[in-house]
């Protein structure tokens, strides 16, 4: 009871200060200090550095879009949970008004505790463990799908894919990496798959493998032996590359590789490492809408900062990191204050329609979770991850089965 009254009072105060002349001046000359915590070294380094690109281009774009100044305070948590915690504390001490990050669920949980304890809002860019927003935190927000959502959207898109290409695969072999993410996805599939009546195939075998494995001969052998029509794959980058190579070596050419939602196959390394073999792999992941106005703006800024790179390869990382900062900045604009409680309430009221990721507007539910983020069916075509579904956002038509398919 007390809390709600306080919130109302704070909101009223914020509104009042917004209308006062002093409030306006203050808002314009204030900067929002955003603590950006990412794993730029350690085993998650290449993803962390990818996300950082999204953060680096944000101040410029946001200044143009919203007229708001944000100042980035970058911290590297070194892919280590202890460091994530102390870095978060440090950033708060140095005056961060809001925290953004961290890509990894373990670190997200640690930072969330710190944020909640210190009453500083924390906007998660990417982390899929559902439990993070189930803890009853008031200061933690996530603009990303939970593993369950990813799976649900992924399975629906699979159905759409088969419909759009008029194919009816009968069997699939489900291969997944046995780590935090892979296991969450597997659980999701276990729960949701039986309920999907519009999917024509059965899962004939499930093969889980060690994320640190450098040799997946056995796993691919098993998969090949199952004689499945296609591969449903939840992987990371390195294992995706290994698997694809192993499939070629073992001369196994199923209809295709479709991910219900995992990193790996749309990343630049996959293309670089596999060349032509990367073609036609499909990932159903949260993605940006290539036709959205904001996407084009962000892409321009991205290319300016990274002339030798392409946004397509960093779609997920850059897109969601940027959006997390957008959420913070948008809340700041509405709150006209850097007071953490006010900011927090403003974030809770977020309703951003002008966004770059697919799906409905950015709106947080009572648990701080965004509902309605869309996924896209992203297929590797001509050396680039290309959105092929949903049709409104598509840049090309999906190809399934892949041309290398050989009926065995």
């Amino acid at each position: 009871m007390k809390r709600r009254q306080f919130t109302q009072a704070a909101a009223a105060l914020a509104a009042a200060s917004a209308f006062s002349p002093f409030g306006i001046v203050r808002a314009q000359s204030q900067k929002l200090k955003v603590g950006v915590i990412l794993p730029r070294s350690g085993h998650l380094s290449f993803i962390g550095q990818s996300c950082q690109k999204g953060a680096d281009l944000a101040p410029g774009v946001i200044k143009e879009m919203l007229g708001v100044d944000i100042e980035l305070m970058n911290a590297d948590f070194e892919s280590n949970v202890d460091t994530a915690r102390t870095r978060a504390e440090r950033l708060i001490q140095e005056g961060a008004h809001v925290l953004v990050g961290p890509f990894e669920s373990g670190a997200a949980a640690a930072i969330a505790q710190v944020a909640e304890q210190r009453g500083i809002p924390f906007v998660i860019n990417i982390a899929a463990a559902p439990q993070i927003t189930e803890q009853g935190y008031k200061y933690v927000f996530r603009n990303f799908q939970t593993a369950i959502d990813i799976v649900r959207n992924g399975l629906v898109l699979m159905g759409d894919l088969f419909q759009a290409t008029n194919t009816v695969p009968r069997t699939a072999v489900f291969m997944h990496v046995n780590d935090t993410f892979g296991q969450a996805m597997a659980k999701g599939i276990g729960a949701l798959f039986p309920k999907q009546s519009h999917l024509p195939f059965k899962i004939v075998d499930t093969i889980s493998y060690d994320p640190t494995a450098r040799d997946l001969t056995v796993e691919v052998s098993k998969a090949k032996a199952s004689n499945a029509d296609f591969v449903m794959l939840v992987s990371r980058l390195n294992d995706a590359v290994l698997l694809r190579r192993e499939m070629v070596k073992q001369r196994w050419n199923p209809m295709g590789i479709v991910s219900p939602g995992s990193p790996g196959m749309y990343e630049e390394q996959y293309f670089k490492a596999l060349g032509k073999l990367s073609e036609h792999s499909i990932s159903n992941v949260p993605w940006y809408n290539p036709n959205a106005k904001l996407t084009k703006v962000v892409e321009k800024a991205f290319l300016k900062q990274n002339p030798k790179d392409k946004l397509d390869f960093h779609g997920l990382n850059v897109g969601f990191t940027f959006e997390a900062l957008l959420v913070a900045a948008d809340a700041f604009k509405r709150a006209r204050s850097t007071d953490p409680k006010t900011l927090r309430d403003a974030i809770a009221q977020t309703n951003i329609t002008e966004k770059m990721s697919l799906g409905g507007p950015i709106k947080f539910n009572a648990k701080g979770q965004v509902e309605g983020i869309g996924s896209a069916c992203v297929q590797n075509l001509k050396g680039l991850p290309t959105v092929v579904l949903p049709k409104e956002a598509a840049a090309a038509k999906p190809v399934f089965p892949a041309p290398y398919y050989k009926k065995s």
Partner: protein
Amino acid sequence: MNRRAAAGLLILAALLVAFPWMTGPYALSVATLILYFAYAGQAWNVMMGFAGQLSLGHSLYVGVGAYVAGGIFFHWGIGPWAGLWVAIVLCTLLGLVIGFLAFRFGISGVYFALLTIAFAEFTRIGFDHIAPLGGPGGLFLKVAQRDTIDLLNFRGPPIMYYYAILALTAGAFIACWKLLHSKVGYYWQAIREDEEAARALGINVFRWKMLAMAISSGMTAIAGVFFAFYYNNLFPEQIFNISRSIEIILGPIIGGVGTLFGPILGAAVLTLLSDGITEAFAAMGLDIPGIKQVFYGVVLLVVVMFLPHGIWPAIARKLRL
């Protein structure tokens, strides 16, 4: 312990108790981390410094302790104080088993170290497959609001955790001091200096070594329980990882194996070094991922090469403690 040392210790203790009131939350979180490693390092030191067994798989006890207490809390809502005892008993048994196997089969030195690594890795992969404990997806403990101190469930503001780990570290220090200056301590010293001679004198080497193993693993279990309730999420991949084992032993080795104050000093120096280098690079505006760890590694290298017995013995000698 001479007067100087006692006085120094008292001053330090006073400082540590007053610490949270003198500094901010960031420093508090760093201090908590230092004390955690000081405690875990002290526990490891018992096995290494006192019994001469190099364990490179101590993360095993941290992990098992954490998962046992965490699991009990997760599934049955029973607070950590009960889970603590289960964890201690289990880990002590584990330590005894490993110690027994090693002794029975005559494994020591590097081979023993490798045995401990193997056990830790084996358990890590094993826990990845234990679904009721979350598997690789991790075990997330329910976190209640942290404004009030709830000792029963070990929940509260960071200051509570700080004092808890401070108490643990102080307790460990005192316990080890008492042990070292007791009959057991002399047996340990004898065994460490010359095992054959000790045996010839009629000392039951096996019994005292087992005791050290048991104490070490039991103590480490408590660290695990603390970890579980401080971080509130456990992943086998992280907690059983060999890098964690290495983190635990860095403190005592740099500080001084076999000494009482070594692990504490070592943990402090290393954590402050790590953070210090990060801050220094940030201040200089250098933002190259990886450079901080290179520097860290170089410092480690230098210390190991030129101060083989650790920092503390050198300092103690200088201060004539």
